[in-house]
């Protein structure tokens, strides 16, 4: 098992919302990917990957971020995976509301994972302009993909 795990979240049919998925797909085929890193193109349910996180040194989760920043900007949040911290919010700058009737957000899932997976998790949010039904990224975000990949590789180095 490789010590680093990268999980790209998103729905690839929902345009820019699937940016995490697209980043993971590109990263997995990138020759610059460090040998100690494994990349998974995920869906929208981070809890599915709980088993795969166990015994890793570090997990990096990539997801779309809805904010006012320039599209393609990458924001990072660290979570140390300390035991007994389940009541604390790991990323206070991010919305933690139960606003989803069908599955948990990445923020909520990471909080629950703390109960059973004591692995440090880094959450990388990629700012997107909008989420619409389309099979690829918007030209605006696609143009930023080389810079986003550079940032990902820097995070993995």
């Amino acid at each position, binding site marked *: 098992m490789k010590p680093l795990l990268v999980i790209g979240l998103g729905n690839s049919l929902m345009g820019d919302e699937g940016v995490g998925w697209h980043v993971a797909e590109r990263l997995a085929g990138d020759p610059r990917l460090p040998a100690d890193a494994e990349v998974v193109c*995920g869906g929208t*349910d981070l*809890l599915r990957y709980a088993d795969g996180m166990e015994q890793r040194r570090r997990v990096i989760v990539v997801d779309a971020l809805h904010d006012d920043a320039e599209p393609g900007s990458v924001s990072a949040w660290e979570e140390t995976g300390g035991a007994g911290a389940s*009541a604390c919010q790991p990323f206070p700058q991010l919305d933690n509301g139960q606003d989803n*009737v069908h599955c948990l957000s990445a923020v909520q899932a990471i909080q629950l994972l703390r109960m059973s997976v004591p692995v440090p998790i880094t959450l990388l949010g990629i700012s997107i302009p909008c989420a619409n039904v389309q099979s690829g990224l918007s030209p605006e975000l696609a143009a930023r993909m080389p810079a986003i990949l550079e940032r990902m590789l820097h995070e993995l180095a």
Partner: protein
Amino acid sequence: MSKIVIDHLARVEGHGGITVEVEGDTVSNVTFDVFEGARLLEPLVRGKRFDEVAPVLSRICSICSVAHTLTSLKATENAFAVRVSPQTDLLRELMFRGESIESHALHLFLLAVPDYLNYPSAIALSADKPAVVLLGLRLKKLGNLIQETIGGRAIHPVNAVPGGFGKAPAIEQLIELRSALMQGVADSDAAMDLMASLPAADFCHCDTVYAALRSPSLDSYYDGDEVMAVSDGSRAIVHATDYKTLTNERAVPHSHAKHSAFREKPFMVGSLARLTVNPRRLTGKLAVAKKRLKLQLPADNPMDNNKAQALELINDVERALEIIEQLLRAGVKDEPPVPVHPRAATGTAITEAPRGLLIHSYTYDAEGRITAADVITPTALNAASMEMHFRKAVEQSAERDDAALSRKLQMIARAYDPCISCSVHLLRRQ
């Protein structure tokens, strides 16, 4: 006039919300806006070859990717008159069971139970009652394991292909699954104990029409081509090819999803509908559990869908074990998929996704490329019924406190286990 607005059920701006307008004691208007992506995604498969369709449409939803994949394959196989092997039928049913276990565990433990116990979220619940959340996570993990073992990966299964399976599971993998399911029996029993201990949630009562797959075995999420609709003791059968006579869809101005009505009445799909249509599944241990939950069928309370999911959780674990025993007894053959010979034809499939009836219908040209596609999800089918129950809940409530009514409406919405938000998954800054 007062207005109750719940605008954060979905994660797409401006969609997935509930609005209820009340004038005096009269509910003047109820709208539920569903962002129902499936309909908008259908153009993405036009022109695709028959073997490219399921991998695209499985991406409609991560939670229901098995149901979308297998319903897509079934529609394609129906179009080309392909009959898959009994082993394929069993493996597909097993994948459905895994998805149902995973989805019901997620919904009951992490979304519904916090409501009943007055916690704002599963995270808050985990601080006080970690065992409850860990039980849910264990069951969810079991469902994931089944899907990953048979489907070939955690989501968007790759092993299931037109005509059969690209790669069948090894005997050792099935033995490992059997061991995990033995633990799952105890966990699903514990889930029943929890559900039986929850306070009652009676927010509205009204006659409800139920519709579900009528499988020849009475207990399949996958096998069968007929829908049974049950209303006031009467039953009607609709064949898959006539699905439009069941759905009678009409566009409504306030929602992306069209509304469905059978004989001019909204209908409910999902676990409660499945148990109502196929009540003979409820024997032995399930009959005892049904009595503990005080579940009467047909039910007149949509909150009973949560009880029905708990019963299905027990049944899914038992049925998955039976299928694995069957496969182990017969021995898993390394059989190639049945050859597919494309032709100009239409194929329709109906199955039971975790949250209800799922319909895929495709028209192919002679080269096996899609010329038209229709995907109708359970959440779209339920939209009109949800509005009906929201209206009844407000009309039948003695309370006029907006916060209390809002909580009831959200719990009803969650009981339907709708899939309005899975299409997107965004982080948001505070």
